[in-house]
């Protein structure tokens, strides 16, 4: 692309993956800056994947102190209290990640997601948010879209044996191999708010039940002022009531959102490590595709549930 060559050290370290995506994708990766907010199991997996891949820099935001819960699916945190006492999740993850690949700059920002302004956000090429409220997701996504520079925006969350990824690449151009030729393709993405506002009636047929179930829970948490994942079995009756209301107003058959699924998601909001590995792996691949401009990117939701074992892409965009 721009004539700069990979160093001998880079060629040696990245040998096997350069054979997958080529030397110029590797150069683009090494110039990309990624911001992640909220580091639980799936995001820890994602961070590991892109640090190994050799991105330019990774900035971590998570000011929580380490708790039993934070430790559960996150292998970046040392379990020894003597080590983690007094440090934030982001600081501890930073120490582990630096070790994975000395060629990547990993750092911590102590700000809060809701207070990040456009000046700060525009220093990144990719932003991934996790375990934050619906309002925060919408607001960060909007800020990204207001910038003159295109930023790839992702949300990711895992609960029980399920996971969801949302992707907004705005207006995105990429190269696609067709037989021997490389053709240029374009895609237009809706924002998170636009995507979840598409009337359910207007959806394509047979959208994953996880899409609907997670919208119900998201609505419930917002209405009750809960932090993401802060639900218990005792919330189930009200969650089911909300589901009924939403299905009625959106004219969706209630059977599309099985009560058993909602029960699983409400009672067990903890992450399941194998699902974190799967979701963090898919997200890593998508971010690498978006940075390198190579290969069909996911548009615009991805779902995985270990119970049926399917990893499904859903395209939910407002029709022009």
């Amino acid at each position, binding site marked *: 692309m721009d004539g700069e060559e990979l160093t001998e050290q880079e*060629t040696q370290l990245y*040998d096997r*993956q350069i054979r997958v995506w080529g030397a110029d994708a590797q150069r683009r990766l090494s110039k990309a800056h990624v911001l992640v907010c909220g580091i639980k199991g799936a995001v820890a997996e994602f961070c590991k994947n892109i640090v190994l*891949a050799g991105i330019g820099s990774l900035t971590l935001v998570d000011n929580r102190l380490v708790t039993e819960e934070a430790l*559960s699916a996150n292998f970046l945190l040392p379990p020894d209290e003597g080590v983690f006492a007094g440090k934030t999740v982001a600081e501890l993850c930073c120490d582990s990640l630096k070790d994975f690949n000395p060629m990547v700059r990993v750092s911590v920002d102590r700000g809060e997601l809701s207070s990040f302004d456009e000046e700060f956000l525009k220093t990144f090429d990719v932003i991934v948010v996790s375990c934050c409220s619906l309002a925060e997701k919408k607001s960060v996504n909007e800020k990204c879209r207001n910038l003159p520079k295109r930023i790839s925006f992702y949300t990711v969350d895992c609960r029980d044996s399920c996971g969801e990824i949302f992707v907004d690449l705005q207006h995105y151009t990429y190269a696609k191999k067709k037989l021997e030729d490389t053709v240029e393709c374009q895609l237009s993405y809706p924002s998170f708010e636009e995507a979840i506002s598409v009337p359910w009636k207007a959806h394509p047929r047979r959208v994953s039940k996880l899409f609907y179930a997670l919208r119900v829970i998201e609505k419930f948490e917002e209405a009750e002022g809960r932090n993401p994942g802060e639900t218990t079995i005792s919330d189930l009756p009200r969650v089911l009531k909300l589901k009924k209301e939403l299905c009625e107003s959106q004219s969706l058959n209630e059977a599309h959102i099985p009560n058993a699924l909602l029960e699983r998601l409400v009672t067990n909001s903890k992450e399941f490590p*194998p699902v974190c590995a799967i979701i963090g792996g898919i997200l890593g*691949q998508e971010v690498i595709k978006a940075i390198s401009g190579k290969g069909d990117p*996911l548009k615009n939701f991805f779902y995985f549930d270990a119970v*049926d074992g399917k990893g499904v*892409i859903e395209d939910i965009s407002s029709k022009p």
Partner: protein
Amino acid sequence: MASQQHLSTIKGAKVLMVGAGGIGCELLKTLALSGFQDIHIIDMDTIEVSNLNRQFLFRKSHVGQSKAKVARDAVLRFRPHVSITSYHANVKNQEFNVDFFKQFSVVLNGLDNLDARRHVNRLCLAAEIPLVESGTTGFLGQVTVHVKGKTECYECQPKPAPKTYPVCTITSTPSKFVHCIVWAKDLLFVKLFGDKNQENDLNVRSSDPASSSDHAEDVFELKKDETIEQYGRRVFDHVFGYNIEVALSNEDTWKNRNKPRPIYIRDILPEEPTNQNGNMDKICATDEQSLISAMTSIGMKNPQEIWSLMENSRIFTEAIVLFFTKRKKDVGNLSFDKDDQLAVEFVTAAANIRAASFGIPMHSLFESKGIAGNIVHAVATTNAIIAGLIVVEAIKVLQNDLNKYRMTYCLEHPSRKMLLMPVEPFEPNKSCYVCSETPLSLEINTSHAKLRDFVEKIVKAKLGMNFPLIMHGASLLYEVGDDLDEDMVANYAANLEKVLSELPSPVVSGTILSVEDLQQELSCSINIKHRDEFDEEKEPDGMVLSGWQQTTLEKGDSSKTSLGNGESTSKALPSTTDANKNDDADIVASGTKRKLEEASSGVDASSSANEANSLKKLEVLDDDNDLVVLDDDGDLVTNKKKRLQ
């Protein structure tokens, strides 16, 4: 999923992991995070720099150490209370016998070669322990479940054979760069730096065989009165000049082909380098093998760039000089190794010069290394996803949830909206010689073939046995083991050299041989049928085993084979020493996967009219809980839960 019941199943399980590489690192981490308490891990490999981009438990300071041990130590740092036992050993060692396997609740494979996969499959069948098998290459991957009597075993489906090229394509009529690479590494490299006594087809046969063989006698020997530089230039002219002229004299060969161009070194590097001392001094400072490089001594750095014919020629001659001066003791017993920098440089240069001669595009060192070393593309993300899927499947197996077992494919392009596609496992193949008792049959010339041929070409190469025991009725013809007394060893050695029909207990048409591997606890019967003649080209082994299948990787290659009319020799030449040994996986290319890819690409090609059939199937879907099943033709079929029930 993570209910109390699950957790107690997980906590009580004893797990054996085979492989601590790309998938292994991810798997060990995910198992520990998921709550597994007792994990054993076997890997014979040590850590290399090119592992570090994905095998995240390893650091640069660990290069050279045991993968299994370093992986264990790294995971204990974030999960100190898990019991992890590491073995720096080959899973095929005798210590890992059926009794060893029997102590585990489930075996999880993260292997890189067909041989070890087959071996573990057999031990799992013998020990009746469920096996979760996996593989990745690039963005593709798969996880399969093998439970004796319930689902197919790893060997129920035919596995791809190493790719081979007809000898004449390699020696006389290359048409692709890979042919030039095979020539450079399996013929020229071996001729110059390997075992001189090995049979080698390097020299083309001219129309006058006498003169060519005379000429070939001494051409690769360093003469007393020449310098190594002169020797290198002479070899250059012989293989790229003289040999091409000889080939050109065989006019029939070139009727339908572009003629190659002989290349002589005087036209490319007109002056013999008079002063190599400057370079030599520089290199003398470094005696470590990995630092001896023709690129360095010539001042070239970028492995991604394609060298000119002149640069290739300089690398070629310089590499010969370096081998004969700095690595003199290796010369005579080298075989190509993708991690040997100087060997890769030599092979790249030689392949490129040959390519130039035949009008084939040249390639960079980086690309050549990939082709010559059969390097499999590997990224961290696919391994992480596959490891997650292995754990999901392992938990089902531990809970005996037979109806929920799935084989899962990780795809690069979505098929029916899916990137991760679960498929119902197949029932055991009733004619599988590994997990059923179907006899095999072998056509062989019993009055010519020796027992050794049978052992090498059938028992070891095809049936994959390590410690075979061969019986005819009650009499033992052959066995391998540590505890044999001298008499028996001598007796078996003598039997090996005997023709089948002249063995103490003669093997003739109609004989049923029983072949066993005591370690794998695998035994099968082979019905012997005598046959006089075999087609040298189609049946190069001189024997045909049936009831045992092997597919070839590239269907299209057969048309190329038939073009090789210029030469009489056409026996198959294995393209590489280790086509089955990939960095992470090879099973993605297996029969099942191929079927799936054909089927799913059909679904993808929505624009193509002749795929209407697949599209119709896509429309029929209605039930939300449908499940994808592959039928015998490899078509995707839904809602037919016929396989397991």
